[in-house]
């Protein structure tokens, strides 16, 4: 199962041989512990059940049989976390049924097949491991949900607090006190059967006790002096208003938090003696949550400083409450309160969730004030306006085309100048179907862009590419940068995009030209010497088994033609020759001007080179303005001279020299008889008296 630690299996069977067979089947992959009867098995499990991943259990055994073991495992709550596979010769379906009812995971009948035992053991262990993982995932999720719940409640209750003009700590104190008193009360009595979860839910719900005050008029709520009878009557409705708010959440009516909050809202002004409002409930007819919140509410009011009073000590507060000056409460609760002065002081002094609260304060501040006054919202709007203005200003100034698209509205917004430049509206609805945009960017631009963005990730949402945009009648190169907007969903989706297109046409053209110049001969547009060499060497390296040949030629009596007819004529001849060259070879072959009137052709051939070279030679001889152009050519084949560019070029040059020596206007394939004709450097000396153009290299 794992290389790190073997899973441990407990084998329980009274027959040593049966245990031994099972142990042998599982040996190596698992740690095996053996027990020879039910009692022994249980004592092992009681001591260290957590160490085992599985139990293999026989049924018929002395001392305690398999069913007994299962029953005990149920009693000890072991059966839920530790799978048990029964292994037995029992075949009666009632026995098998009974084992399953007692919580056995599986039943293997004797005689068993070794591989099936092995497979079932592995499967069961894997299944339980998976289940454990799932349980922990769900626990995490519940935890997270609680946290979110509690945050929302905090936000809500702070809104109430701010309207209420209470200190920010009151709600927090009531919550902490509620939690504390509930725990204490449950320790003292089992009159209120509350689980830990109940206690935590009631504590969270306590924060909502005054939510109904949202419905009370500001001037009553924040009236500096005492309330008139009429006003007090209105004030008292806050408990029913709060309850009504919660009751109207029909979708959540059965949610435990909402249910507890309802009880607290409605009944936190009831009195234990039945003289409270709104329903006059008495004793334990008042839900315990509401009873405790009522007490916590009063206690915190007494022990906190207010504008109109200083803070009373715990003792003084308890004394006042016991005297019945602040309401009537459950004696049991009073006892819990009175007994725990020290502990209560400590928990209230604890600076809980300080950071969170500061953030909350800012947030709720804004929320609370948008309703009360205009100060905050004015400022926010001004800030937003300012940002928008800033954005518009820069967008208007820039040459860039800025754009923004949202999937939700299927609308693309383009910066004003950008829209003008492209000749489209600033807002384009359903850009995918806009003919105008198709014309500018290309038919499938939208689909392609979305597909590309979907391949990006929330961590790296940006893509860049160069593209020609068709605007104002011409195609211009643009540098396009687009950023996907990803949603927070899992998995995240592309929600839209923002981006810009920068016109880089001039720079693009310049760079293309520079690249072209660096590799091409400007007069004939053929490759230059260096580029030809580089390309040929690449070709030789990448396709070692192909048959290549290299031909060099120059134009006979070119210098004379130049001298006689002038350089412009010379250029014309060179251009004409290079055009003929490119026409007589395949696109994949390489031709270059090596300098002066010397040219190179590098080509691939299959079978016989002679007809090819004859055809090329013939096609290059022509007449330009009555000047008959002839050439002298030398050819070197790779299979004769070897595979390096140097060799090919050198031998072709020797063959070219041989052609010249033999009277020009001809070609020769290199063979070793030419090896000892003059070295290249001397070629010029021989060549010169004849009056031909000097070689430049």
């Amino acid at each position, binding site marked *: 199962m794992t290389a790190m630690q073997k899973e441990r299996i407990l084998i329980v069977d*009274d*027959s*040593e*041989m*049966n245990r*031994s*067979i099972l142990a*042998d*089947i599982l040996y190596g992959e698992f740690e095996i512990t053996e027990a020879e009867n039910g009692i022994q098995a249980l004592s092992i499990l009681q001591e260290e059940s957590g160490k085992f991943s599985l139990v293999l259990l*026989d049924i*018929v*055994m*002395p001392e305690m049989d398999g069913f007994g073991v299962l029953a005990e495992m149920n009693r000890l709550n072991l059966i839920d976390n530790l799978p048990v596979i029964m292994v*037995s*010769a029992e075949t009666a379906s009632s026995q098998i049924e009974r084992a399953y009812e007692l919580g056995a995971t599986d039943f293997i009948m*004797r*005689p*068993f*097949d*070794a*591989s099936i035992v092995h497979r079932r053991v592995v499967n069961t262990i894997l299944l339980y491991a998976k289940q454990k993982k799932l349980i922990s995932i769900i626990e995490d999720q519940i935890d997270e949900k609680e946290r979110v719940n509690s945050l929302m409640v905090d936000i809500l209750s702070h809104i109430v607090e701010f309207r209420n003009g209470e200190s920010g700590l009151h709600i927090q104190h009531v919550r902490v006190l509620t939690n504390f008193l509930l725990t204490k009360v449950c320790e003292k009595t089992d009159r209120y059967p509350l689980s830990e979860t109940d206690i935590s839910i009631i504590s969270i719900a306590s924060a909502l006790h005054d939510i109904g005050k949202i419905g009370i008029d500001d001037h009553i709520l924040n009236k500096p002096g005492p309330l008139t009878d009429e006003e007090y009557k209105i004030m008292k409705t806050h408990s029913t208003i709060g309850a009504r708010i919660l009751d109207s959440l029909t979708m959540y009516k059965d949610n435990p938090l909402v249910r507890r909050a309802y009880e607290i809202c409605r009944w936190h002004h009831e009195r234990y003696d039945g003289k409270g409002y709104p329903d006059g409930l008495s004793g334990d007819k008042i839900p315990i949550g509401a009873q405790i919140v009522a007490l916590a509410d009063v206690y915190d009011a007494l022990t906190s400083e207010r504008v109109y009073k200083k803070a009373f000590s715990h003792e003084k507060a308890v004394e006042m409450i016991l005297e019945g000056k602040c309401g009537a409460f459950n004696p049991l609760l009073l006892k819990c309160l009175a007994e725990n002065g020290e502990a209560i002081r400590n928990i209230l002094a604890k600076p809980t969730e300080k950071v969170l609260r500061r953030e909350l304060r800012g947030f709720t501040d804004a929320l609370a004030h948008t309703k009360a006054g205009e100060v905050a919202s004015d400022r926010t709007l001004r800030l937003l306006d300012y940002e928008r203005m800033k954005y518009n200003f820069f967008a208007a100034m820039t040459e860039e085309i800025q754009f923004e698209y949202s999937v939700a509205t299927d609308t693309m917004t383009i910066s004003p100048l950008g829209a003008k430049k492209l000749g489209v509206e600033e807002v384009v609805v359903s850009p995918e179907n806009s003919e105008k945009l198709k014309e500018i960017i290309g038919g499938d631009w939208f689909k392609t862009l979305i597909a590309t963005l979907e391949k990006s990730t929330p961590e790296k949402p940006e893509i860049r590419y160069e593209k020609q945009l068709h605007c104002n009648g011409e195609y211009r190169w643009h540098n396009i940068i687009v950023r996907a907007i990803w949603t927070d969903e899992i998995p995240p989706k592309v929600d839209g995009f923002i981006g810009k297109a920068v016109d880089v046409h001039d720079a693009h053209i310049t760079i293309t030209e520079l690249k072209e110049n660096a590799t091409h001969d400007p007069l004939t547009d053929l490759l230059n010497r260096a580029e030809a060499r580089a390309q040929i060497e690449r070709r030789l390296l990448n396709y070692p088994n192909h048959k290549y040949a290299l031909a060099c030629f120059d134009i006979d009596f070119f210098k004379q033609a130049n001298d006689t007819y002038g350089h412009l004529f010379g250029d014309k001849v060179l251009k004409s020759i290079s055009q003929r060259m490119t026409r007589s070879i395949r696109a994949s072959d390489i031709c270059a001007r090596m300098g002066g009137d010397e040219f190179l052709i590098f080509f691939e051939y299959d079978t016989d080179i002679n007809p090819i070279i004859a055809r090329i030679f013939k096609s290059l001889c022509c007449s330009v303005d009555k000047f008959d152009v002839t050439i002298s050519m030398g050819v070197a084949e790779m299979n004769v001279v070897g595979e390096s560019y140097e060799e090919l070029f050198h031998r072709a040059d020797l063959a070219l020299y041989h052609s010249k020596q033999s009277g020009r206007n001809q070609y020769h394939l290199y063979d070793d008889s030419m090896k000892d004709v003059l070295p290249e450097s001397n070629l010029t000396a021989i060549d010169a008296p004849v009056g031909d153009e000097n070689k430049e290299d």
Partner: protein
Amino acid sequence: MTIEECYAALGGNYGDVLGRLRSERLVQKFVLKFVDDGSYKLLCDSLDGGNIQEAFRAAHTIKGMCQNLAFDKLAKSSSELTEALRAGDEANARQLLPTVVSDYEQTVRAITEYKNSVL
């Protein structure tokens, strides 16, 4: 004597056991172990002492082992005995016992012979 001949001699099915346990070494190991198991003695002693419960468990264990090892002949007779004992039918059990005894002895004889030939 080969293990197959041993199985033939004791009325078992070697093909079956090898198919299930997948290893001749394992089969050999457990066949040799069978004679050391105390269940048969426990069965006889319990019946002598009139302890039907204990006798049932012992017979049940023998049946289980025989099934695992594909000792078909002894598996059949011990299985019948197990059911008689489970039902508490002592008279029937005593009638069935001699077959079990003779099958058991046949089995032990074959295994002993096999053991002597391999060791």
